[in-house]
């Protein structure tokens, strides 16, 4: 078509276009005057105009939009359900600046993993890919619990991907969207990130892109750092030079370096912005930014545009943390400021140094916290005095209880705490049989849980005795014996625990001798147990852990439970493995449930559970006989049973009181609910623990007035703590008459 003809068409088209649809035909008739081709041309263009206007996509969007939609369409619909190499793609996990990540199944090993596909524009240059692979392989050799495990770096055709451990959790970025983190959480996360960095730096690998998007928080509390070395792929691309061999330390002109605006400069160190050669200290700066952001809720160097952020990093001091949070410890501020020093010579020179200071601070704060808690609710320490530990009981083995009585009361034992192994007052319950069977089967995990003073420790001692009699090696660690500094960090805890075990089993190699600071504490502990304990002892090992509820308030508690669970799981996967010979018996008080508001946090969901039931009426009658029948007849036994229900401690304590003080049942009933009475200590303690949660106190008041529990959760907590009994929130009552009277007196 020549230009002149096109002008003619255009003129006529525009003239027709301006007219109403009704007039157009007549207008064209006249204007075309027999030139049918001209008419057809204009008419078809007018028709096309109508259609184009209505066509949603066509030219009514920009090319960038269309391309992005093409990309989105591919991503959303494409890979899921497909098989890539041997991997079955299950779902899309996310899209980031560095590509798309899918959840996939590896049928060969039967495990789930994450597949990260690298964008093709980063992988076109073969040499660049080569360099990246070297880096990534070096990073994948890092073996650290806080660094994501890389299984494989490979390609299919020209699509490159990384197969890595699947992390069930969320990124720190997403976590921060719910608001700033409390100091303890921020410290916990940063300690783990610093630990990962220390490991990588020791291997000569810098991360170069530490930011909340690259930090995953796994559901069990582990923090995992992602994408080591990946940043280099982008960097070398945008600077157009292999940064790994770059000797050039002169400032790079940020203004002409568009690579800088990939992602965000918010976490970049001044030297990174200036384009200088960077080292491990750049990661320390970035971690400082993340640490600040976690606590403040804002990054320290902020701005609307990348330019403003860059200017802030290069020239400004961050706003003091006190602007965002009250009561920031001076030490915390000092650590953050040191990490954020503009001059890298002024920063921590190694991640390890920062790690130590972070850990120390965490330890101090945890300690202060503990002191505050004990100051408020002292009962635990009273309890220690009252409760002989299992070890005391075990050490008295095999003292039998048949010594002739010198006087009438000489064979009465103090009531409370573990009962001597030969005690004639020990009543066998269902849990005893179950426990015995579990020990005989060599179950991997046995859980003994119950409210305070229902006989957990006594049961534990008997199970261990039985195991020892059957030829097993027996270890008992009572967490009550650990001091606060042992519970300050996972590291300290595992070391203390390993120390106790080494002592009792008389192991040759001390834990410190094989503890490797570059490994995580749980790895160290696991290796120690596997190699030095299980590896050197041929008999089955039964390990009792008492007072495990002490771990519930530790930040690393879930990590410990996670480790124990993993042993249990490994044992079921590999029945011939080292864990086959280990039986763990874990005892803890369910009172802790009063304070665990999230019921899903239950520390264990594996193993054989033993629940200590209250005594039955006939067991109380049996006990009465063993005490020489202070209860005169069945009707008195019935009355007594209503008073204390079958509560193991109360039942024994009351009978002993009657024997020692020569009281009859009526006299006992008269002083039962008094603070200076025989049950006073016990009763005061339950109210003290209830007092710590005013909302739960209100619920308890309601129940005493005959109302149901408002929620299943409060019902569950009150029942776990042993204060109330019943089948459901609607059917709930005080556990025994004594509790009812005392609670009414104190709460209503």
């Amino acid at each position, binding site marked *: *078509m*020549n*230009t002149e003809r*096109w002008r003619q068409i255009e003129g006529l*088209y*525009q003239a027709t*276009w301006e007219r109403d649809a009704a007039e157009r035909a007549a207008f064209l008739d006249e204007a075309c005057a027999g030139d049918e081709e001209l008419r057809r041309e204009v008419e*078809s*263009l007018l028709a*096309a*105009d109508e*259609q*184009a206007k209505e*066509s949603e*996509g*066509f*030219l009514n969007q*920009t*090319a*960038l*939009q*269309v*391309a*992005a*939609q*093409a*990309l*989105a*369409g*591919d*991503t*959303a619909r*494409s*890979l899921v359900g*497909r*098989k*890539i190499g041997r991997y079955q793609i299950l779902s899309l996990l996310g*899209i980031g*600046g560095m590509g798309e990540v899918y959840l996939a199944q590896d049928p060969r090993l039967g495990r789930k993993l994450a597949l990260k*596909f690298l*964008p*093709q524009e980063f992988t076109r240059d073969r040499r660049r890919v080569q360099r990246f692979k070297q880096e990534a392989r070096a990073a994948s050799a890092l073996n650290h619990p806080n660094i994501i495990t890389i299984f494989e770096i490979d390609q*299919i*055709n*020209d*699509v490159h991907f990384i197969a890595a451990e699947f992390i069930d959790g969320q990124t720190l970025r997403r976590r921060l969207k719910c608001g700033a983190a409390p100091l303890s959480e921020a410290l916990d996360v940063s300690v783990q990130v610093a630990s990962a960095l220390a490991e990588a730096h020791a291997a000569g690998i810098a991360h170069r892109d530490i930011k909340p998007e690259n930090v995953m928080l796994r559901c069990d509390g582990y923090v995992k750092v992602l994408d080591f070395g990946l940043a280099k792929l982008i960097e070398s*691309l*945008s600077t*157009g030079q292999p940064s790994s061999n770059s000797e050039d330390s002169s400032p790079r002109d*940020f*203004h*002409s370096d*568009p690579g800088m*605006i*990939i992602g965000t400069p918010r976490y970049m160190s001044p030297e990174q912005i200036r384009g200088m050669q960077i080292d491990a200290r750049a990661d320390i700066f970035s971690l400082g930014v993340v640490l600040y952001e976690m606590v403040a809720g804002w990054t320290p160097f902020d701005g609307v*545009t*990348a*330019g*403003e952020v*860059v200017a802030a990093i290069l020239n400004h001091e961050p706003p003091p943390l006190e602007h965002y949070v009250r009561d920031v410890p001076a030490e915390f501020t000092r650590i953050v400021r040191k990490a954020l020093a503009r001059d890298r010579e002024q920063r921590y020179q190694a991640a390890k140094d920062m790690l130590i200071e972070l850990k120390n601070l965490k330890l101090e704060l945890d300690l202060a916290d503990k002191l505050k808690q004990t100051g408020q609710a002292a009962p635990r320490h009273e309890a220690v005095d009252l409760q002989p530990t299992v070890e005391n009981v075990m050490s008295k083995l095999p003292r039998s209880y048949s010594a002739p009585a010198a006087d009438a009361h000489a064979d009465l034992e103090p009531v409370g705490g573990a009962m001597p192994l030969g005690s004639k007052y020990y009543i066998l319950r269902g849990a005893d049989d179950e426990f015995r069977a579990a020990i005989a089967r060599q179950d991997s995990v046995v859980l003994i849980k119950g409210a305070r003073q229902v006989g957990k420790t006594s049961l534990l001692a008997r199970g261990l005795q039985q195991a020892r009699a059957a030829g097993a090696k027996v270890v008992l660690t009572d967490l009550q014996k650990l001091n606060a500094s042992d519970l300050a960090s996972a590291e300290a805890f595992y070391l203390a625990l390993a120390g106790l075990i080494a002592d009792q089993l008389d192991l040759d190699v001390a834990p410190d001798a094989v503890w490797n600071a570059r490994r995580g504490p749980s790895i160290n502990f696991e290796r120690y147990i596997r190699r030095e304990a299980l590896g050197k002892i041929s008999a089955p090992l039964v390990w009792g852990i008492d007072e495990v509820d002490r771990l519930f308030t530790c930040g690393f508690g879930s990590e410990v439970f996670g480790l124990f669970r993993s042993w249990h799981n490994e044992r079921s996967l590999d029945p011939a493995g080292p864990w086959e010979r280990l039986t763990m018996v874990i005892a803890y008080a369910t009172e802790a449930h009063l304070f665990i508001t999230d019921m899903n946090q239950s520390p264990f969901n594996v193993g054989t559970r033993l629940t200590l039931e209250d005594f039955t009426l006939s067991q109380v009658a049996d006990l009465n006989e063993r005490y020489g029948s202070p209860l005169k007849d069945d009707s008195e036994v019935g009355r007594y049973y209503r008073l204390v229900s079958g509560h193991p401690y109360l039942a024994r304590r009351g009978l002993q009181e009657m024997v020692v003080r020569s009281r009859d049942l009526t006299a006992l009933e008269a002083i039962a609910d008094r603070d200076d009475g025989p049950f006073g200590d016990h009763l005061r303690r339950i109210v003290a623990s209830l007092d710590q949660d005013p909302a739960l106190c209100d619920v308890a008041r309601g129940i005493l007035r005959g109302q149901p529990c408002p929620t299943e959760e409060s019902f569950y907590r009150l029942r776990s703590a042993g204060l109330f009994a019943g089948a459901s929130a609607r059917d709930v009552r005080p556990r025994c008459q004594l509790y009812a009277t005392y609670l009414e007196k104190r709460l209503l």
Partner: protein
Amino acid sequence: MTTPSSQGITQLLLAWSDGDQAALEKLTPLVYAELRRLAKGYMRGERHGHTLQTTALINEAYLRLIDWKNVRWQNRAHFFGVAAQLMRRILVDFARSRHYARRGGGAQQVSLDEALTIHEDRSAEIIALDDALKSLAEIDPRKSQIVELKFFGGLTVEETAEALKTPQRTVEREWNLARAWLYRELRGKDEH
């Protein structure tokens, strides 16, 4: 205020228009990064039905790439032209590589490329449009330029008018005709 980064892009754009091919290498990843950001927005938007959000994302993306509003460039019109050309070049390359990949660049068993095949391939639309635009340029270079500025460069009618030193009304009329012509060229062909 102009950001250093957009200034950086400005300089790269000019270097490219002066024939520096290395500048294109450096600009491409930036556009791709924006593309992925947008794609992510679309996926979220599709799931939640927010189209407004993605419109905002598009504006933001152009703003980040080529900070029109803040360019204090003596020859703004020239700058617009260069930027639109560049976007066309990069986006068409992008579409071609995806399209090629889909049509079986590699032919081994079950390839990732095959797996990527989808029914509606919008990247083909960009390639076809690029071709059609070349034909349009032969008979009416100015309309082709209007489409390049608006479609590839993401300019508004006002900005296009400024770039071409033409009244807005004229731009609108010419845009309408160009769109109809292209539509007939592309969709019309499908129907026959």
